[in-house]
């Protein structure tokens, strides 16, 4: 487990890539902070999986409802980083 107090867009991109299967492809090149997750190939199930990885890796607890309305990587990072501070 990491003891980081903040995760960055690069951390998130790494986790998003790790959560894609070997037989899947995703395109996260460029500035994706404001790109809706659906356009990045992440529906709510795939996003939930990425959130699960972050929860385990960073020891942060995210309630399911904290992801409600989270549509972009920026909003996702805000939610996770708020939770990290809370820990």
């Amino acid at each position, binding site marked *: 487990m990491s003891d980081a107090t903040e995760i960055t867009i690069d951390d998130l991109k790494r986790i998003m890539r790790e959560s894609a299967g070997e037989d*899947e492809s995703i395109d996260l090149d460029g500035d994706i902070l404001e790109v809706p997750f659906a356009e990045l190939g992440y529906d709510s199930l795939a996003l*939930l999986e990425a959130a699960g990885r972050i929860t385990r890796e960073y020891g942060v607890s995210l309630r399911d409802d904290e992801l409600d309305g989270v549509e972009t990587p920026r909003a996702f990072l805000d939610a996770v980083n708020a939770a990290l501070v809370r820990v």
Partner: protein
Amino acid sequence: MRSTPPSDTVPYARRGVALLFPGQGSQQAGMAVGLYRQHPGFRDLVDQVFTAWGPGAKAVRDDWLTDTPRVPLDSVGRAQPLLFAIDWALGRMVLDWGIRPVGLLGHSVGEVAAATLSGVFTLDEAVAVMRDRVEHISGAPSGGMLAVRASAEQMAPYLHADVVVGAVNGPRQVMLTGSTEPLAESERRLRADGFTCMRARAVNPFHSPALEPAALRAVPALSALPLRAPRLPLYSGYSGAPMTGAEATEPRFWARQPAAPVLFGPALDRLLSTGDLLLVEAGPAQGLTALAKRHPAVASRRSAVVSLLPARPGDGSGDLAAVRSVLEQLVAEGHLASGAEAELVGAGDSR
């Protein structure tokens, strides 16, 4: 929001347009309501479906347009007619722009919308099929569907008579379907084994054998229809391949669909194997857009996917912007004359 897809910056030969139609599970409160209120052409098309539906359509429409529906949107009697109406109207709108798609592919009820646009059913016939389906399925066993981040093969240990794979949406995206308690048991075991799971918005075990007796009650009504071979290339989520004339004209092929597994992933694979395509999702929620984005043909930017509706309806103001953005892409790729977007969407009105 990435308003223009990255493909804009990449040189390409003109790509064929293919339409994707979402099904059960994609319904959202407020879906397409902004477009219905602001786009007279779309509104007229949806109203054609309601008119064809006849008695009962007013209650469906009222529940769609209010924040406090009397019958929940996830029930068969609301989700199915509304998804059909929105999918069909969006697809019809694109055809009316003069686009000649090289493929149509629908998920679940989306396949009925796709088949109607390709001439298997007239609109009146399709609406009759949908009414019949809603009536039969409303009395079917209750249950649900569970989305799992896994391959169909990985699901084998979690299946039994009452829980089956109802949809293969991608290499690592499946839906289990089953009656309430057995499905809950499979979900507990999957979660314990570390799988990411999410309940889908369905109150019946769609695409499971449990629905087959109810679904097959549609055979007599379908047998009375003059089913026709598709006039536009139609891909079936049930065979994972182009729909043949024999399939399209077989009443049981249509009757069984609510009870048969959906092979959307394989069908999308097949569609994208025909060449570089511009996929256009014609329905709510962008679920098929997200699936397509993971396909190597799209992730590599050879093919692309755009959506006529936003991922979430919000206050409805994003609907028209989504349509305009698709029009811009069609203009950019040479499918429509420059300036078409202004003429086709117009300023909108607020009837």
